[in-house]
């Protein structure tokens, strides 16, 4: 990601994180000041509310995931040297190119279609219409499993893949505080994990 693009996404992300906390009338006003190239900040927020388990995460939880996703994308190094196996390493593998330009265009496409179909911004149309529009724009056969987040063919799948690789998602599934990959004590883990902290 170029420095300019990175900064733009950062700015947009910060704005959308704030926007999520605002009532709808305030969000409408905030559209006027949104950073242009990455689309309106509310677009990703609206996508997140559709694809993430919002009922389980709650509004704050969804916002936190979006903030984490933004930070993750901002710090992604395109074509980074990837981890390789202990023994079987035929070749050194490198990661994908920066997904941000494609994902930005996809957010803009959601806005464009919303404008053309509903004469309204994506976040302003009804929830059911948002989901229907998003489903139309997602790849027709995205596969069963979640992709490597950085290789996701759509920003919505990137956000999903990012979230579902976190320990928070694992804890939500099992409803226990497993806290995967959290460093702790050598004696820990001998008992059944306690209930998840909400």
């Amino acid at each position: 990601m170029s420095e300019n693009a990175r900064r733009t996404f950062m700015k947009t992300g910060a704005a959308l994180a704030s926007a999520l906390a605002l009532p709808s009338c305030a969000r409408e006003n905030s559209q006027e000041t949104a950073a242009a190239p990455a689309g309106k900040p509310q677009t990703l927020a609206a996508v997140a509310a559709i694809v993430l388990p919002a009922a389980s995460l709650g509004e704050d939880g969804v916002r936190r995931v979006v903030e984490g996703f933004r930070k993750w994308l901002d710090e992604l190094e395109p074509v980074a040297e990837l981890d390789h196996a202990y023994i079987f390493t035929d070749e050194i593998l490198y990661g994908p190119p920066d997904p941000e330009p494609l994902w930005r265009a996809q957010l803009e496409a959601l806005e464009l279609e919303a404008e053309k179909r509903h004469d309204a911004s994506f976040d302003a149309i009804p929830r059911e219409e948002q989901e229907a529009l998003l489903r139309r724009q997602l790849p027709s056969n995205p596969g069963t499993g979640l992709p490597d987040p950085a290789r996701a063919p759509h920003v919505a799948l990137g956000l999903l893949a990012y979230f579902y690789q976190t320990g928070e998602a694992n804890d939500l599934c099992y409803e226990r505080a497993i806290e995967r990959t959290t460093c702790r004590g050598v004696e820990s883990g001998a008992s059944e994990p306690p209930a998840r902290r909400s």
Partner: protein
Amino acid sequence: MARTIEADVVILGAGISAAMLAEKLSEAGSEKILVVEAGNKIFNLDERTARRERFLAYGENPWPDDHIRGQTAKGITSRTMAVGGLALHWGGTTPRYTPEDFRVHSLYGVGYDWPFSYDDLEPFYFEAEERLGVAGTPGPPELDPRSKPYPLPGFPLTYNLTELKKWAEKSEIPFWPNPVAKNTIPYRGRNVCMRCDTCNICPTGAKYTPEFTFQKLLEEKKVDLVDRMLVRKLVLAEGSDRIDHAVALDRDKPDEPVEIRGKTFVLASGYCWSSHLLLLSANDRFPDGLANRSGLVGKYVTGHRPVHAFLEAPLRLYPGMFAGDSLLSKHFQRAKAGHQGRYVRHDLRIWESSFGRDPRIQDDQGALLLGDAILDDWRKRSKTGVARMRAYYDVIPARESAITLDPERKNPWGDPLPRIDFVDSDWSKELREHTESEIRSVYERIAAAGHGKILSLEVDDKTYDHPGGGCRMGADPATSVVDPLGRAHDHENLWVVGAPTIVSSGCNNGTLTFAALTLRTASAMGAS
């Protein structure tokens, strides 16, 4: 004129065998020891927390530039070439071979006996466990013989493994915690494990990696270490079979030739590159490569073949509780013979797993799931547990299983690269179907006893795990490359240590055995 570096003992390679050797030889204190590594020196404990975070977030290599561009083998090997070697990435698993591994021909009429017994190696197993810092809980003595307790107390079993142990033992196959080179108490200046579950990049340094040994030896000025120095050839003394010097290439000054002179040379470059260097060092007197009057340099390379399975268990498990921890059984390694009296030996390991329970975005009907529907679907599919299981069975080495110089590939400096072609021996070819059938029946037995089922079973055709050989040891110079202590039959001042010297690969992870063999060689070198 070549730049010259001199030492008494020149160790080529800086992996785990080199670390064991350098440390032990340095304790005598009388000789100048030089360690030469082609790859980079990566001493990064203070960076590991950040490296770990990026590994978790992006899958990045936590040991960047741990390889040399263009220095690759064709076949099964690691690209890692750095101070620390493959053990930078290892999981720290350190089981011993069993006594039977050293006598398979005498006991079962297949394969090859080693030139010494388990009892001969046992003190060096313990020494290796002490130097690496192995934490373990002994298995039943008849299955897991050892003369002394593990140096470090074992890890407590996780909840998941406790449940899986009870479940799997309904089959009357005993399991116990897999021993690991990770600190359960502060040990040798390294921290206690915090169970971060990213053992390929241990942020605390609780897992043993060889660069800790080298850092300490360098701080104490007990060894010298040069990295980024690729040794290209060993050269004999005029009119003698002794190694006189090594021709090397300083990767930072490739146009400046380097000669490394020593009284004693030790190949500690792993199973691929040790044989490769001997083959590269051919000369008029040794036209097939140094140490190769037998014609066996690079031959009899071997490993064990994994049979993977995932078993559903009617247990409530919580994947994510230290997925690297595992259970081990040697029940089928000590058997006198398998079903129908035919030779079958294999280990068994069990891990927690989320196989088939990962979140998904399409349901069984192909409908796209979004929002809470993904989580609901995931929860429904995660009500029962899964055991990941794996059996390693030994592939009996064949002479034709070989490392050779690839006529079609050269490195950036013009040297032929290695080519590795694994071949099963006739024994293994004949036994293969029977062996894999027996392992399948073991999985079926465990599943049936625990009211579970096999979800997946796969023989990994392409894998010879923990590979070794190529400079196999033996008493007879006609059938081996090095003697039972690791000295080349053909060159009195050339030794080979670790993985290249093994006669067979057993049924367990090999690193502890490679380290024990190296320490045995170090004792012999000291005595000589």
